[in-house]
């Protein structure tokens, strides 16, 4: 969870942001062989805080703006409640299915870093590759036109292959364990210095290192629960530290009269 999402949903200050970010899930790597599954895919991440009353309509209009005429398609909101135990975060929402294809995760965050969120943010995560394949009507993600005359395959295929090899076979487990501990220690040190933003960076590095170790099959059953707990603890401390730091600054984005 990028800082603009995880941190900005905390505390009382309103915020509206949209950005593209890559999402890496080592366990989903398929060496570039699977036409639908990637180790790394791209999301268009939108945070609207507080959640507007017409947020669903806004989302549907955005699909229209992409050229999708919803009256000619089978669109459904199906119950799916996102959660990230590592970051102490969860929400209530749906996966949006378009003619059977999941294209978006739509969530009203309820908690992050173990803290109750107020006001509630709506998070809309568009799966760009998915939407792309839907619009372009191609059978494989790799056939997507990236831009100009360049296909997705030409840009990303080699990367998928090499990173799958790394995640599943080549990653140096001992080094990763050491890194996990180093990242954790640095995060704690920075928190003590009240440098919350860099501290969160290191929390994310811990989380990603955990994912790498997990996809490598390197974490034993007893260790796994413990490690998740350690990352979670960092996330919760970051969350508290962030809110405290914003408070010290007087919650600058709040303005004289809170909107809505």
């Amino acid at each position: 969870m990028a800082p603009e999402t995880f941190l900005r949903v905390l505390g009382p200050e309103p915020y509206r942001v949209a950005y593209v970010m890559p999402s890496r899930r080592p366990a989903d790597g398929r060496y570039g062989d699977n036409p639908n599954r990637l180790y790394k895919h791209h999301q268009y991440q939108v945070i609207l805080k507080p959640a507007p009353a017409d947020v669903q309509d806004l989302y549907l209009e955005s699909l229209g703006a992409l050229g999708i005429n919803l009256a000619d398609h089978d669109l459904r909101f199906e119950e799916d409640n996102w959660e990230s135990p590592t970051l102490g975060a969860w929400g209530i929402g749906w996966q949006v299915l378009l003619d059977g294809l999941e294209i978006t995760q739509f969530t009203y965050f309820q908690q992050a870093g173990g803290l109750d969120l107020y006001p509630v943010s709506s998070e809309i995560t568009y799966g760009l590759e998915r939407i792309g394949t839907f619009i372009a009507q191609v059978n494989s993600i790799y056939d997507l036109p990236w831009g100009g005359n360049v296909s997705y395959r030409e840009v990303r295929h080699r990367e998928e292959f090499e990173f799958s090899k790394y995640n599943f076979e080549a990653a140096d487990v001992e080094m990763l364990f050491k890194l996990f501990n180093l990242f954790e220690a640095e995060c704690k040190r920075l928190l003590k210095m009240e440098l919350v933003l860099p501290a969160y960076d290191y929390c994310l590095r811990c989380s990603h290192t955990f994912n790498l170790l997990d996809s490598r099959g390197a974490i034993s059953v007893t260790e796994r629960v413990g490690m998740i707990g350690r990352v979670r603890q960092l996330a919760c401390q970051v969350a508290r530290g962030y809110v405290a730091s914003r408070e010290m600054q007087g919650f600058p984005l709040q303005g004289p009269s809170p909107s809505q």
Partner: protein
Amino acid sequence: MEKAELLVELGAEEIPASVLESAANQFADALVSLLGEQRLSSGQRTVWYTPRRLVVGIQDIPTRQEDLSETITGPPKSVAFGPDGNPTKAALAFAQKLGVPLSRMKISQTPKGEYLTCVRRLGGQRTAQLLQELVPAAIARIKFPKTMYWSRDRFRFARPLRWILAIYRNRVLKFRIGDIVSSRFTAGHRFIGRPRLTATSLDSLREVLRANGVLVDPAERLKVIVDGLSREAAKSGGRLVTDEELLKTVVNLNECPAVICGSFDPQFLDLPQEILITVMREHQKYFSLVDQEGKLLPFFLAVINVDTERREEIRKGHERVLKARLADAAFFWRMDRKSKLEERMESLRNVLFQEKLGSYYDKTQRLLELLPAVAKMADSPELANDLQAAGRLCKCDLVTEMVKEFTDLQGVVGGLYGRAEGYPESVWRAVYEHYQPKSTNSPSPGTRAGALLALTDRLDTVCGCFSIGLIPTGSGDPLAVRRQGNGILKIILDQRMRVSLRRLMDLSLKTYMTDRDDIALELHKFFEGRLRFLLEEMGNSYDCMNAGLSPGFDDPLDAVERVRAFQDMRKAEDFVALALSFKRIQNILNQAGSFDSELNASMLSESAERALWENYLRILPEVQSAVREHDYVRALRVMASMRQSVDRFFNEVLVMAEDQAMKRNRLLLLRELARLFSAVGDISEIVREG
């Protein structure tokens, strides 16, 4: 009295399919109940729902409460008025207390004499006014398994509420809940309807929604879907695979359902049917079709949320998605079989079963230890070898890609991979079946080996959890221990196994190095709860359960046979009479206290008591043999045949005779009877019906 219709529609963002029906009914229940509390009657109620709305209509609600009239009695006339006819302090105090002048009161004749009384009238309020409070209160009573908040006022609901239509007497019922104010506006289908519509009655709501792409009545949607499914099935030349649960789900996922038929590459039919059907139903909510021989056809039926002419693109979209999923499944099927199941045992060390109970590798070791003993206990020692083989394999599929992707297929996939590897049917089928029964309504394993493996696996889970204090409570049962317990009993009953629960539990607890009595006690209570639950589901009444379970339930099959016998005999007149007599006998014996003697038959002087004794001697061996054969109905029937002699005894014989020796002898006779009647269970628990 004028009566009118109440109509309320709660408009929300898509509410989970599984909670819709319950929520709508809870809302209706709450309204009717709250109306009743206000002395307002209600007529026919209509409950409709779609993912985006809960609609309740209640007919014939009086527009006004009835005036309430009550008579309050004060002091007697003699106390209220003095000899001169003037009111006394008592009368004045009464008048003051009620706030009513004495002139408005009167003297009434009551059974106790003449009293000062006052009639008090409470004017009935207008229903419309009351509803402004009742409806929000009813909304607040709807309970969901999971709620959220979304707006400033932190009102909680399953999903954000966005509008409320509330009409009474064809006029808007205005109130506010959360950040929503009620109105006469509703919204049509998101894409093929208009967003702002009006309705002031139940019927007009249904019609305006229908004209805007919404079938608000779930019964109508069901019909459209069922008709569509059979039509498309017929067109394809195949037969629909019935799936009641999926049907219910899709009714609750759509506002404007339509059925489309798509196809997939026949080469995927090389994959086992179980996998194909699971892929289609679990992720995509598709229905499957089979040919006349029951083999899967390369088609699927999807229920979509829009009735449009332009289905081609939608169909292609669904086909593309299904193709990707089937390609995944085919990929897994190929890749998984590159390793043998057995080779995966080591990897089970990395799959956590439970934090304190270890990995699935550890679980497997425990199963291998338990299986031979369980097989022996179940009188199936010849299955020991098959069980060892199946036990080794049964958890290996947890580390296959197929099960990691389709967790519902655990066990099934293990069995299928086992079959592909050439294991004998007795072995792979046991693995295939060992997660059955999935619920108390679904079948338990069909083979004995499968049943024993399933039993042992669940036994290990239940005893393991109890051994670390993970006892299921009302609010928490994360490992579904209760369901596992149900499964254990269901398997024992379906297989007609005569086993001792205590011995099974001891076996399992030993593998956890536990022999604590308190744990055994908790398990005992737990299994009693599960057994009662199952018996109730089988339609047995509370008193029969108590009667049949009173001698214990260590042999669950035996316990169920007893309870069933009581349930069968419950209506028989003779039996009920006997139960009453037994209660009477018990009471007499309880009062008499204990005594140590032998019955002296020669001391039985009255003919009634001699007849009773002879009757008893005659039927005793028959009852005993019936009990030995677990034929409890026969035992009870034979006992009930004693009814006449028992009745006659109580009519003609004085148990508490003056003569102490005779009295003791009669008590001894009754004690023998009591023992006999207790042979099946505690008959005194049987209550008279009505």
